[in-house]
């Protein structure tokens, strides 16, 4: 029986990056990172402020060039200047603040912006814009000026603009930090659907453990190095590691930990609210 191996979309090899002009006391922002992201993989990137998450994302998108090492996007090195368009087309980026990434005066123009830069025929642009708008439920908003959209709608417009480029991977830097609970739900569901249905790889930087729960894999950065790489249920319940790095587990994992310290006997791998609730309904033991 043949086993199909997923294609590697992103490969970072021995990646170093140092911001020019930093004081002599500062170490490189990325200090030897090796990372592979496969087709269809949903990777969450955790780490304290200043650990190098955003720097890594920018290197994956060729917004920054490695000081040492290299980044391959679908086998193309990001330093190959003449192929930059291919790299950015394969890997689109969503930023934290939706207002910083919307460029056009209507939603449809914003979605079409990248395609116009690729100089595609206008019928093809029309077709793709309509298709992604339909896919993301934005059709009724196509003529709207983006500044009148909700935060969630703005982020989905940005995602649509990337999706229209038919990428293999989407990079997201805390895409829900500025959104209300409904907008957050809207954006996360959209991305998860695309990840599952279209095998889109996702690299999602987040400070919210509840968002990382839904990933296939979590990579944790500290001072520009990868210090943990595993499944959500391994990483998000390893509170010793997370606390040492200034991070937290899920609320359920944190609460379970406090309860264990008070002598309550609970299973080790509690990550989701539901798991904690089930355990508490069963457990009578207190030591």
């Amino acid at each position, binding site marked *: 029986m043949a086993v199909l191996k997923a294609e590697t979309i992103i490969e970072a090899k021995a990646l170093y990056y140092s911001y020019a002009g930093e004081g002599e006391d500062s170490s490189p922002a990325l200090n030897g990172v090796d990372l592979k992201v496969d087709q269809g993989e949903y990777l969450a990137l955790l*780490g304290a402020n200043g650990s190098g998450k955003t720097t890594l994302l920018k290197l994956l998108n060729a917004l920054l060039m490695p000081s040492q090492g290299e980044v391959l996007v679908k086998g193309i090195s990001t330093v190959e200047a003449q192929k930059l368009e291919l790299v950015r087309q394969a890997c689109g980026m969503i930023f934290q603040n939706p207002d910083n990434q919307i460029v056009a005066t209507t939603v449809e123009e914003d979605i079409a912006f990248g395609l116009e830069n690729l100089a595609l025929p206008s019928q093809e642009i029309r077709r793709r814009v309509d298709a992604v708008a339909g896919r993301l439920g934005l059709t009724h908003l196509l003529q709207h000026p983006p500044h009148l959209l*909700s935060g969630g709608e703005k982020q989905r417009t940005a995602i649509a603009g990337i999706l229209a480029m038919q990428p293999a991977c989407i990079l997201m830097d805390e895409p829900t930090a500025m959104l209300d609970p409904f907008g957050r739900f809207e954006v996360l569901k959209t991305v998860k659907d695309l990840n599952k249905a279209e095998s889109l790889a996702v690299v999602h930087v987040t*400070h919210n453990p509840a968002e990382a729960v839904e990933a296939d894999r979590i990579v944790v950065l500290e001072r520009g190095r990868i210090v943990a790489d595993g499944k959500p249920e391994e990483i998000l319940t390893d509170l010793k590691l997370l606390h040492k790095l200034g991070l937290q587990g899920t609320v359920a994992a944190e609460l379970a930990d*406090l309860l264990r310290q008070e002598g309550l006997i609970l299973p080790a791998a509690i990550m989701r609210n*539901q798991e904690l609730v089930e355990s508490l309904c069963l457990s*009578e033991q207190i030591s």
Partner: protein
Amino acid sequence: MFIGTDKLTHTYMPGTPFASAALKSISFSLGRGSFTLLIGPSGSGKTTLIQHLNGLLKPTSGKVYFDGQSIGPDKSALLSVRRRIGLLFQMPEDQFFSETVFDEIAYAPRNLGLAENEIEESVIKAVERVGLRPKNLLGRHPFQLSAGQKRRVAFAAVLSIEPEVLILDEPAAGLDPSGKLMLFDLLSRLNRTEKITILVSTHHLDEIAALADNLLVLNGGRLEMAGKAREILARRAELQDLGLALPQVTEIMDELAARGLPVSTDIYSLSAASKEIIRLKRADQG
């Protein structure tokens, strides 16, 4: 009433086809030394309201009060209001413009015309209050700092003129978990020990809900609910209808109660949840 509004209405671009009512007859009052959370969906008017409390916008109708006075068009009175009410915008580090951390924090005291030694004193005091060490920091360029440090520098810039009221718009956005907890500790300390009146606009109630005395809920420009935080947080169905999320720990307590465990659901922090569950388990055993 220490700070509040009376029938405050704000319409953007009035008299044009684009006129939109952002605030509709809002009245509330907050006591000196109180800690208040302002919540509501995106576009409900939170940021517009905050700008009024600092005199940055003029009411279309109605009034804004501060310490017994109406905040009006009188420029010198407005200056004193802005000195006494510190406002921290969303992502405040996006507005850094100085070459050094020192100059960034010294901007407001300098504008107040303080002597250079007084300016230095207030900068150092402000930096220490937010838990940063002035020595390694003040000479650096603000853009060289980590996100958590930048946020604290922005905070220090507001504290440098020693405001009596702090108004903060989504202050924890973009901070890592330890940065968030540090910020909440700082807010709690400023409120409880230094008696600074605090108003925080936020979408995220985790942990911070436990600090609040009052809650204001905006929806579509109307003040939908206002009152004691605990009483409003107990109105679960209404909050849910507005698309507002409870603290996750509260959701866990609600779920336990729904499963028939006799736990209190008036719980908004991890430590309170842990105490309540342990109380229940001990009671079971005893």
